């Protein structure tokens, strides 16, 4: 019996950290979930980098 490698069909994303911090590798249950995470995190991080994250 042989084993072949196949990628998981789950949708994943990475929150890439700067040197010195741990990158988060995340697997979501659904593509919609992953899309939401990526979209919203990108938005919030963009606001933070622009100095507009007021909350």
């Amino acid at each position, binding site marked *: 019996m042989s084993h072949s490698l196949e990628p998981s069909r789950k949708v994943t*994303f990475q929150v890439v950290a700067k040197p010195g911090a741990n990158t988060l590798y995340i697997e979501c249950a659904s593509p919609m979930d992953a899309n939401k995470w990526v979209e919203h995190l990108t*938005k919030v*991080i963009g606001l933070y980098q622009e100095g507009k994250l007021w909350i």
Partner: protein
Amino acid sequence: MKTILENPANADKQTIIEEAKITENNLNVLLQNKDIVESTQIEEEKVNAPEKQEEAAPTTKQLDPLVKDAKLFLVAGTIVKVWDKQGVPKEMHLYMTYDLDEIQSKKPFSTQPEKEFCLKIEDVAGVVKGYEKYGPGATSPFAKPKGLFKKSKSS
């Protein structure tokens, strides 16, 4: 007036009444002036008020509904699988703190976030979807056989 104050016994009734009237008039004049000063102050405040409103306005303007949605989603979080450095998945509740300062993850039904899977927003370089490498020399555990690539039982 001074003479009356110094020697009240020597003062006549008429002079006292006259002096009293004068002081009453002076007080009335002062009160009128006070009203004028107060009214001018109120007018000045009214003139300056729009500027103050403009200063306070950005807080209300910044409440972008899209950002609000993003905040609600991120603070609530979801149950996901977070992969450690060795490529072992752990089921965790991923969420952001209320001030959007840190991405945290904790075991479901646990109250304590696990430091290994926490990341401050200032340390985030970017968000990448999929398996792509990010930046020069970056490696992903997804590319490893023990990571996201799972062995299938194929004959």
